């Protein structure tokens, strides 16, 4: 890399980070200063008043949204891990006839967007009394985020040597024991990919939560922020900036901690050619 390219890249990087800077700075200004023109790039005083207003409004409903989203993400991660570890193990190590069917299902879920199934899903939720419940949303998340995870775990299991499993079988270990005692400990990087992928997908979901939830005890944080923005007559930019900053911190931290695994998982498909 030449010095010139590097300098150019630094400038682009600054531009890339500018929206985040502006978001945080705006959330730390007093209300009167936020709407002032020309805007103050470096605010004269920093205050947490916007966060106090955000967290204080409607009996702390924003913290409730955060809590809901954490529960949604956590439960979905557990359900996806449970179901996709079993499925991936069965698909890569046990010869049985159902494998083709599962593979077809996985492929078609990847190909069919859930956006086109909102109406029948709503109808199904209605029949099962799942509308506006956390379990309902978790089940849909798990269904649509699982295929990628099964696919990834399956190719990871496929790369592990069969001799491990065979010698364990000779020693009399059950398949379940082999999965939990041998395969899972060996697959921690792939499991980390599942965790960060499912966390980002559920935390950042908007349309599913918008369609299937309506009460404050179930809504996720993305729908919560739009409520703050749209229920009032004028946009309260102080509160919106505080809400956006708070809700973005979670996925950014998870991403920064686990980025190696996330990027590995995303690019494993690209490298297979």
């Amino acid at each position: 890399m030449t010095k010139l390219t590097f300098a150019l890249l630094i400038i682009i990087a600054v531009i890339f980070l500018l929206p985040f800077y502006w978001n945080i700075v705006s959330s730390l200004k007093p209300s009167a200063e936020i709407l002032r023109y020309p805007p103050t790039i470096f605010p004269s005083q920093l205050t947490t008043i916007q966060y106090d207003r955000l967290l204080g409004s409607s009996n702390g409903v924003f913290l409730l949204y955060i809590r809901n989203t954490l529960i949604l993400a956590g439960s979905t991660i557990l359900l996806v891990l449970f179901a996709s570890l079993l499925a991936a193990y069965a698909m890569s190590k046990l010869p049985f006839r159902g494998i083709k069917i599962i593979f077809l299902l996985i492929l078609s879920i990847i190909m069919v967007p859930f956006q086109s199934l909102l109406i029948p899903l709503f109808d199904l939720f209605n029949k099962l009394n799942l509308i506006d419940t956390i379990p309902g949303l978790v089940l849909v998340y798990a269904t649509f985020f699982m295929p990628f995870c099964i696919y990834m775990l399956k190719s990871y299991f496929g790369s592990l040597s069969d001799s491990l499993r065979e010698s364990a079988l000779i020693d009399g270990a059950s398949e379940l024991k082999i999965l939990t005692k041998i395969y899972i400990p060996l697959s921690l990087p792939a499991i980390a990919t599942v965790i960060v992928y499912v966390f980002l997908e559920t935390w950042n979901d908007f349309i599913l939560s918008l369609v299937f939830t309506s009460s404050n005890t179930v809504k996720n944080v993305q729908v919560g922020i739009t409520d703050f923005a749209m229920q009032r007559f004028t946009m309260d930019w102080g509160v919106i900036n505080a809400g956006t900053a708070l809700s973005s911190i979670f996925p950014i931290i998870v991403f920064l901690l686990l980025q190696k695994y996330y990027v590995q998982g995303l690019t494993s498909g690209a490298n297979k050619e």
Partner: protein
Amino acid sequence: MPAIILMAVFFVYPLIRVFVMSFQYWRVLKGAEFIGLDNYAKLLRDSEFWKSLWNTIIYTAIVTPMIFVPAIALANCLKTTTRRTRILRTIFFIPVAISFVSASYLWKWIYNDTAGLLNYLLNLAGFIRGQQSWLSETWMARTMVSVMIAWKTQGMTMIILIAGLQSIPQALYEAAEMDGASKRQRFRFITLPMLRPVVVLSLIISIAGSFKAFDHFFIMTRGGPMKTTQTIVMYINKLAFEYFDIGFGSAVSVVLLVILFIVSALQMKLGGYKND
């Protein structure tokens, strides 16, 4: 097997139902009535459907090059792994981690016409005078939403392209260099053909994503002005959950499903998912 049960109940069943429902007329509280192809006939005549489809296509055409030009350039600059490039890659990838909702509000605030950062900076630099409104005119709104999406999603494309570039065997370049191939020739005859499958793959993922656009237009323009930025998913959402026109909404969903199915079938064919 828990995975099969989940997929059967929440995927296969709704998938069959959406086709069935698209042949039905739904009356509030009275249930459904079979009406054959009437919903599809209505769809062909429905100007709002064609408008939404057209908006989605135009948006895809605008946003795709906006994502790929910077992604290709950045991937090319950052393909070797050093401490510097790793930090830069992370910075360019961070917007991928946040939600479309957050990104939309971040940029809606930047685009704000009375106190926005963009107007201020452009005035400061002398490019414009006075306060420009960025989201209230059709083509400007489409472009500015696309700028936001390029910022938000190009990191994903960049990372996939970097992986593709790194998988090209170094020996090929060395052999070409020994044979006296210039830098441009090496790019033209090694990089481009070797990278083609990865580019096609990420192109199709990106196009499929644009067809599913909802969050950012819902928040930044609400489909306006005059429904000219209303996407197909927004239309489905409105038909089903505001107008309760279930049968017709299902017919529009089937159209979206078929379009995306074709796009992804292309992706499967051109590489990626194989049963091995």
